[in-house]
């Protein structure tokens, strides 16, 4: 169509009625002229009139077509169809409610999970040009020693400073590290989430202050002390009461009064997805805030995550090449005396590499990305089932409208027009379903986040729907409308109008075909449900197995207490004695049955492993067991049986010969004898201790170390009282059957008596173990929810189809009963038919289920993806659902009165 016609049409909008009247007059004149001519050629008046009409053709159609020339007909008919669809929905509120609810659940579940994925995976950091950010880390090479103090790839401070001062790859670089800092208000101290940041941190990210100023490189210089703090917008809003004079106020951070110099702008929640921050302090002040250990001049403390902003026109490949050439000098310059001498060679050969960091870093992402994608897939299947259900409902309505559609077809409506109309009738449904789904997604999303948040670790995820989430929902809605709208539309359009109109209302021509289609839809539903139900059983089993797994130690009635001595400013030599003194006081608390020090709480996720070999043999002959440092009474506290030898005791001191206790798995791997007590082992040097020998003095039963899923690993326990470098923190495990509040208040009291400067923090061991199972719980809870949803939807679908079949067969049932069939036989024949449908569905679903189960195999524990018992269980559950759904229509069939049924015809 040319632009001129568009223009003409546009103008015509304002004067159409006139045009139409004129057209009518014009046609009338035309007919009169033709009639006149015919009369003149000698026809009778009547003949002349009919001949003129014949010659002209369909007057109404001509008018319609001429009108369409002027109309925006597509748009207009679209509105008509929409309005018609809405009126139809108003007439059947029950159908509408079920359909909208189904859609809302399907779309809502999908959107909620996608929202979370979007927030942790797809979204960029809320900073300037996030695509330019790159993460600088060590290449994966052996020989890295020391302690990794963040969950993210990290460098040590000398290395960071070298990179900052010598690199030319990036326009600018930044470094940061998450930490906890205690701020005091009066006597009370509480921990807040803080960031060590480099001076350029905010500048490089492009973060502006909401108040005051942010750090510059001037603030981050050697020996800066506790000079100033920047607070986050959320902290300012929630903790400082949006005080507009907050700048200059002081916060007491670990005894230092520190002035607030600025507030970051709203919307910046830190470089880490999943966590926000309260305070930011310069890296240079680490030594001032922490009385224990100066990380600034250490090459074994890996704590700073380094990022750079690529120069315009540069690329990651270029950056990598330049970092590689910078590496030798950087590692040479950053090497400090604390690096273990036998690994110095490795250190010099380290290399720096860069990865894209546009999405920030996130442990949340690493932990949940796969489960979330998996859940999105499952939610998609739920939506498919919902679509099948809706298609079925629409077909049922379509059958009722066969007559109407047939009449319209025979009156000259084109099939395309009918398909279009039926399709558009589903639009209001989908729109309201999608809107309800978006609302539902908000609620579900919040539930998900709170499900994933743990006691000491609140999760921060920005669930603000962005264009990606909205787009996702729109696409979902469109696909849904097409899926459940098209089937009935094409069905209706393939009608043979004459047959449909000829046939009676209940045995209309298309019925046979329609019922076949509806059965196929129900079979699809059953097949897809089998996937979901099996999945939910597998995940529930996994969770159950993990909860029931014998970890090898006592989980109940154990409290973890974390004591912080740092404010006592104890010299290294007095630390062990002080800790011992506090421990002795704790042991005297009435109700505390036993208490012991522990370095790594089992299943907390922390781990240390070092190479160990038999004394006198070659280092190469050894292996890498896990290590833990525990005090006297640890095994008693956790109920780990001592199989041979002795527990650690008071006589094990830094001065006495070094001893170790090992577990059975260690003895097995060590391979010397079933009872290794008395043997000597050598352990490689660690960042803090040289290579040294230990005598094995005890053998204990196996227990889990890092996570419940693992098989028992070899563990070497070292004595806490023989620690050469005791720090200022003490972690205790206390076994007590006292009620929790009573126990904690007694412990606080006892510790407070020793010194009010020792702060205590508690965690319940059992809670911590449960929290380590969060991903499994998430999968079990959501897949269970989806499984139930799928079962319900399938029940509705089956109910609809069986009701339909029973209604259609009323006549036949009547005849059967008249011929002597009993109620029981009728009932069982209907139920048998349902069971057949369900079984066919299960048969179809089985290969799909096995395929999907193989995909999730790595997420399972203690159950095989193709476990026949699980499949049986899921199949039985579906059969049960099917029979329950069919029971009502079956009862109705059994109640058919043969006389009424036969007369009905």
């Amino acid at each position, binding site marked *: 169509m*040319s632009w*001129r*016609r568009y223009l*003409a*049409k546009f103008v015509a909008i304002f004067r159409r009625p006139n045009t139409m009247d*004129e*057209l009518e*007059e*014009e*046609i009338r*004149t*035309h007919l*009169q*002229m*033709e009639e*006149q001519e*015919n009369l003149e*050629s000698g*026809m009778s008046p009547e003949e002349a009139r009919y*001949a003129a009409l014949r*010659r*002209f*053709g*369909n*007057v109404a*159609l*001509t*008018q319609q*077509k*001429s009108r*369409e*020339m*002027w109309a925006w007909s597509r748009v207009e008919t679209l509105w008509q169809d929409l309005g018609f669809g809405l009126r139809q929905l108003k007439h059947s509120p029950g159908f509408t409610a079920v359909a909208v609810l189904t859609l809302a659940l399907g779309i809502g579940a999908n959107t909620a999970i996608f929202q979370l994925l979007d927030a942790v995976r797809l979204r960029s950091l809320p900073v300037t040009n996030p695509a330019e950010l790159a993460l600088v880390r060590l290449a994966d090479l052996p020989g890295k020693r020391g302690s990794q103090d963040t969950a993210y790839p990290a460098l040590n401070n000398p290395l960071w400073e070298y990179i900052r001062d010598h690199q030319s790859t990036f326009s600018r670089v930044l470094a940061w590290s998450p930490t906890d800092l205690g701020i005091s208000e009066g006597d009370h101290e509480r921990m807040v989430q803080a960031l060590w940041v480099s001076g350029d941190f905010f500048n490089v990210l492009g973060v502006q202050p909401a108040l005051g100023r942010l750090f510059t490189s001037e603030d981050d210089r050697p020996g800066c002390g506790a000079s100033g703090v920047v607070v986050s917008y959320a902290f300012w809003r929630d903790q400082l009461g949006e005080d507009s004079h907050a700048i200059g106020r002081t916060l007491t951070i670990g005894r230092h009064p520190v002035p607030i110099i600025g507030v970051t702008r709203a919307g910046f929640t830190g470089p880490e997805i999943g966590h926000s921050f309260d305070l930011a302090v310069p890296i240079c002040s680490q030594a001032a805030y922490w009385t224990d250990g100066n990380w600034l001049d250490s090459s074994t403390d890996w704590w700073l995550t380094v990022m750079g902003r690529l120069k315009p026109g540069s690329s990651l490949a270029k950056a990598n090449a330049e970092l590689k050439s910078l590496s030798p000098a950087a590692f040479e310059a950053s090497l400090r005396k604390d690096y273990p001498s036998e690994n110095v060679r490795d250190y010099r050969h380290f290399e720096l590499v860069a990865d894209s960091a546009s999405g920030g870093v996130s442990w949340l992402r690493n932990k949940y990305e796969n489960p979330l994608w998996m859940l999105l897939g499952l939610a998609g299947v739920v939506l498919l089932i919902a679509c099948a259900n809706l298609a079925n409902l629409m077909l049922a309505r379509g059958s009722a409208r066969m007559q109407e559609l047939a009449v319209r077809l025979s009156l000259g409506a084109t099939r395309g027009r009918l398909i279009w109309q039926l399709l558009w009738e589903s639009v209001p449904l989908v729109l309201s379903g999608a809107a309800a789904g978006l609302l539902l997604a908000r609620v579900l999303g919040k539930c998900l986040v709170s499900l994933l948040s743990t006691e000491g670790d609140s999760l921060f995820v920005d669930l603000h729907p962005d264009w990606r989430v909205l787009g996702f929902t729109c696409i979902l809605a469109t696909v849904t409308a097409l899926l459940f709208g098209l089937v009935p539309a094409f069905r209706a359009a393939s009608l043979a109008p004459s047959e449909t109109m000829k046939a009676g209302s209940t045995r209309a021509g298309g019925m046979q075909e329609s019922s076949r289609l509806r059965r196929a839809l129900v079979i699809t539903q059953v097949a897809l449900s089998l996937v979901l139900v099996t999945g939910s059983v597998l995940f529930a089993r996994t969770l159950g197995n993990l909860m029931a797994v014998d970890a090898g130690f006592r989980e109940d009635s154990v409290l973890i207490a974390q004591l912080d001595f740092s404010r006592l400013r104890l010299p290294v030599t007095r630390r062990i004695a002080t800790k011992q003194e506090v421990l002795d006081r704790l042991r005297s608390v009435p109700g505390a049955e036993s208490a012991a020090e522990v370095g790594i709480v089992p299943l907390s996720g922390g781990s240390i492993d070092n190479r160990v070999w038999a004394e006198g043999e070659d280092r190469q002959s050894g292996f890498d067991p896990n290590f833990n440092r525990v005090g006297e009474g640890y095994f008693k506290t956790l109920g780990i049986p001592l199989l041979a030898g002795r527990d650690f005791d008071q006589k094990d001191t830094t001065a006495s010969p070094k001893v170790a206790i090992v577990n059975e798995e260690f003895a097995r791997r060590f391979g010397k004898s079933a009872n290794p007590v008395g043997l000597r082992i050598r352990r490689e040097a660690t960042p803090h201790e040289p290579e040294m020998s230990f005598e094995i003095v005890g053998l204990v039963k196996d227990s889990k170390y890092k996570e419940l899923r693992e098989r028992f690993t070899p563990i070497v326990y070292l004595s806490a009282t023989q620690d050469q470098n005791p720090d200022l923190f003490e972690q205790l495990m206390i076994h007590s059957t006292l009620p929790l509040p009573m126990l904690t208040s007694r412990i606080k009291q006892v510790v407070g008596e020793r010194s009010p400067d020792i702060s205590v923090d508690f965690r319940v061991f059992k809670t911590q173990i449960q929290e380590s199972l969060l991903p499994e719980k998430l999968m079990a809870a959501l897949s269970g929810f989806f499984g139930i949803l799928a079962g319900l939807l399938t029940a509705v679908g089956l109910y609809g189809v069986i009701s339909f079949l029973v209604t259609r067969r009323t006549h036949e049932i009547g005849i059967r009963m008249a011929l002597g069939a009993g109620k029981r036989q009728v009932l069982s024949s209907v139920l048998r038919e349902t069971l057949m449908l369900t079984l066919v569905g299960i048969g179809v679903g089985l290969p799909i289920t096995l395929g999907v189960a193989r995909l999730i195999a790595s997420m399972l524990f203690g159950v095989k993806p193709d476990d026949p018992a699980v499949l049986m269980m899921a199949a039985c559950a579906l059969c049960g659902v099917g029979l329950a759904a069919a029971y009502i229509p079956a009862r109705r069939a059994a109640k058919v009165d043969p006389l009424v049924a036969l007369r009905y015809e």
Partner: protein
Amino acid sequence: MAKQPAGERIELVFGSLDMLILRTLRWGATHGHGIAKSIERMSDETLKVEHGSLYPALQRLQQEGWITAEWGVSENNQRAKYYRLTALGRRQLVAETSRWERFVKAVTGVLNPAEFEEGQ
């Protein structure tokens, strides 16, 4: 009334109606009935025009700006709408005519290759 047996009438090729209408209007303004009659007359009654189909086409041509319409009085004193060719329409007619001739030539060539080559 048919002057030829209905079977020998030829249905209009899609799109050619526009051209025929424009061609008819070259001889001066006339009304819808007149256009129908003159197409039939000019084609010796070979071309079958369902009179009704003229009107959507007339609307379309108006929108394109190739013809204009105004009310007038017919030879029998009836009020009728008269269509007139515009300058734009004249140009369009030339273009369409030459396109049509090329089309006919091409089709003829396909149907009757020998003759086509002679014509070259």
